């Protein structure tokens, strides 16, 4: 189960990276990065997962006293939440950039923006 999740996560990351490194279209690159981000999040969750435990939500089902033994590690979950938020911000920023680039240059091809080099 963990292995599968880990595998899925890494597969998504590689897929995303591959996509980002091979697609020249800005939007496609952004999408690819989103996929990779998702993969990272999956990996994060998978690493924190402990078989047979429940979500780290302290409610009636999981009393505080048993929490340490019954819930999975809450830290990766917290990380994932943060990472998702940040990923959202970054994606939004990239989209904003893509939009402004398109407006300014009329192109979405990353290989068109090479006036800065050497």
């Amino acid at each position: 189960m963990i292995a599968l999740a880990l595998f899925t996560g890494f597969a998504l990351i590689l897929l995303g990276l591959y996509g980002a490194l091979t697609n020249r279209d800005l939007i496609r690159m952004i999408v690819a990065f989103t996929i990779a981000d998702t993969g990272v999040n999956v990996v994060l969750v998978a690493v924190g997962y402990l078989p047979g435990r429940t979500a780290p939500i302290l409610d009636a089902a999981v009393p505080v006293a048993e929490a340490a033994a019954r819930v999975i590690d809450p830290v990766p979950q917290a990380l994932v939440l943060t990472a998702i938020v940040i990923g959202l911000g970054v994606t939004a920023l990239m989209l904003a950039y893509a939009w402004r680039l398109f407006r300014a240059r009329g192109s979405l091809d990353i290989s068109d923006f090479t006036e800065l080099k050497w």
Partner: protein
Amino acid sequence: MVSALWILALGLGGAFGLGLVPRGRGDLAFALMLGALGAMLLVALGWLAVMAGGAAPVLITTAAAPAPFAISLHIGLPEAVLVTTVLIAGALGALALRGALLRLGRGAMAVLLVLMMALSGLILTRDIFNLFVFFELISIATAGLVLLSPDPRALAAGFKYLVIGQIVSILLLIGIVFTYHANGALGLDHIAATAPGVAGAGLAMFLLLIALVVELKPFPANGWALDIYESAHPGFSALFSAGSGTAAVFALAKVAAVAGPAWAPLLTGLGLLSFLGAGLLALRQTNDRRLLGYSSVGQLGLVLAVIGQGDVLGEATAFIAGGILLAHAAAKAGLFWLSALVPGRGLGDWAALRRRPILVLAFASFIAMLIGLPPFPGFYAKWELAQALVAHGRMPVLGSVLFGSLLEAAFLFRWFGRAMKAESAEVPSANPIDTAIVLAALAAGWGLGALWGALSGLSNVLTTIPVLFALAFVALEPLPARIKNVIAILGLVGWFVLRLPDYDPLRLIFAIVMLPGGAVILLASFTEGGRRLGFYPPAMLMYAGMALLLDAVTTFQFFAAWELLTLGSYFLILRGQRSEPHAQSYILFSLGGAFALLAGFALAGQGALDLRLDALSDIPVTIAPWVFVLLALGFMTKTAAMGLHIWLPGAHAEAETDVSPMVSGVLLKAGLYGIVILLSELGRQRLMGVDLVNMLAWIGALSAFIGAVLAVFQEDAKRLLAYSSISQMGYALFGLALFSHLGWLLALMFVINHYLYKSMLFLAVGGVYRRTHTKLMYQMGGLITLMPFSFFSVLIGIVAMSGVPPLSGFGGRWIFYNAILGTDLRLPLVMIFLAGPVGFLYLFRLIHTIFLGQLKDPHRQIKEAPFWMLVPQMIYVALLIGFAVLPGMILRRVDTYLGTVFGDHPLIWTGRAVSSEFGHWNPVGIMLVIIGIFVSVGAILLAKVHGAQKVKQFNIVFSAERPYRPETTHFAWNFFAPYRRAVGFLEAPVATRFWGGIGDALTAGAELTRRLYTGNGQLYATQVVLFVLVAWAIIFGGQS
């Protein structure tokens, strides 16, 4: 003390608070932002004060829980210093960005505040996930602030930056989660405390580290960052370099400290790769901001390498890395802010700065800070780094660092030289706020220099009287040149008188040449009117270096003085009209030589931070030869021994009229002084069966001969004199390498004689140049009647120099023969013998083609050289004649002193005559006999031809023809054509080709490597991925 959390809270609060400011009230928003920044800075300064007072570091917890359950921050002295630095940079940066910020409104200001908050957080936090969050915040803020740039290309740069940010964040996150998985904690202190539990922890740590390394924009995975540097608003680039770079390095340092020494080689390697690669690439760079970007990359790489070497540096790491980092922050921020004042983007466009000398001072200071020249922190850092590295046998690392520094010097001085020489009609912006920001960075740099000097535990360069005296001339710049000249002369003489009782006779000889000798040359500077901006500070810096050199008792003092005189003389030489390329090669060779000295001293020190010079004689036999080689290389670069000489002709020839004698007559002696120290402390050394002192003798003889031959073939009078200096220094080197009483006496006599006649000749030729505006000898001719005094001094100069009795050169030859008769070193003698008459050739040419022969039309009404230029010449004439008749005045004391050194007394002084084991020399007798004969013969001739018809230049027997024009009648060009046909093969520029080949290879490498940066963001991303993979393969490849 308020909690350091307030720094973050104020930043965030300010950012949110900006949202409350009504739209259209940009000024209010800006004030609020500045207020927030100021408040953050106040808190940071408070902590800095506390920490500097010696308080213990404080761990700050958040969410009222200790570390494993919550994020903790840590503030100690380094954090306080860095946060303060970053915030100062931020506050000044905000001012620099004010126009753009006001244009874009409160949103941008909020982003700036967030950036500053995130940078502070990055420095303070002890939690790796928190690191990630701050990195992402920085990343987002950076992408936002890049948009401040008026440059439309910045858009694409920002996008590329974001793409890389994504990759880094993926790496970082995976690294973080696996680290957490392995260690069960996110706090750095806990990771360090728990042993890595799970396999794969290594990979996790690798991912973490490599992600942080990529944040430092390492070569070659850094094209994206350079685009930012080039296109962003310079105010932001300053922040990006000084703030983000600094913070990121510190974050890496924190993680690296946790990761343990196993990762040190990786960090060192990547750091050095960056340092060298960036330096190489910058060699071909033409855009100022991109060049600064490369420089940032290189400097951060250097710091990374220093962090990687933390295991051997120990306590000193903070001092060294901090020194480099802070100097870099000040210099780089200052340079980016300066670039905002410069209208053009080419390197030559910085010529506009020349219209505001204070900015030139800033420019020069920043460059010196980046290269690590005294008195800036990088200098102390480099010294300690070298000591520590050598002590632990890490010579390759030291070698790379020094080579990288040389590359850095190459591109920075190339830039500076171009800025000083290029034509520019542009005027730099005169905005007072922007200027004030630059000056603030300048003040910070100098302040740091003083601080680091005080902290170093070595002698503080900035508090020595000569340096302070030299720096005082910066303040005196508004005064007229003549007043400054008086002060300078008084200073030199005064210092000499002050120090006189402490000099032993050996040092006295050098001191006489360097201090009062320098003062005599300065007499010629009275010719210059106006204010002569930029002349006295470097000149006095050079003299300060020489004064300190003579006073130096430890290796550090010696080295610091050496660097000072090098730096001062570079700026002096650069003042010449066409001297830019020559000054460039001068500084490169000099710094190369200085680095050889640094390595040599470090090797000798064996870990001792500072070593008394007289302790050099006690170093172990195993390393002594290597120390000898390194030091000898360093000193011979200064004396321009054959092979290391190619900088000299241009540098001496193209320098200003009164600078040429300074750098030739005086400065070269510094190298000789070094060799004297070297030989007297280390004595004879053998390396792989070769007697190194004999080797020196060979090099000296070769220099003496080839230098003379090359001088014969020069058309440029000053170049001729410059090559002659190489030859003369060769003689002196040979004399020293004879390693005997008489040999040293010979060398010391050369020190005095060469100073006298070379200064005189350079001044005379300079005076002629002043009138004729040419240095090409064949364009002159027949000036004897118009410039009789100059002719006379050249005449005396060449008689003295060629060794013809009765002038002082003969004494040198006499001692020379007596010295060599006692030596077994016979083969190099042949070359010395060859060199003697060859000297005659070029000297004759000098006097003949300038003063004799046919007077040219444009020169018919030329006046004698300016009075003040003649004054020192006539002083030299008097001294030369005096020294010829009474050599005992000085030599006798030195002779006695050398007797105590070598324990023998080969010369017997009876009255005014000298005799040796082999022969005798009666200077007064020679003078009287020659004068007697000369006057008698002259009287006979005069009695016979007193009524001779005085004729003019065309009244010559010209095969009964009438000469066509003076130009066609003056035999001067390629004067020694037959000699060239016979020995012209010696002219082959072997050394020039060799060094030129190295230079070409480097620039070709740079040109080739530059092509990596195609500007395609996707390719950059691929490079980053490949970079990570290769690093991974190197680290883990060996293990599997």
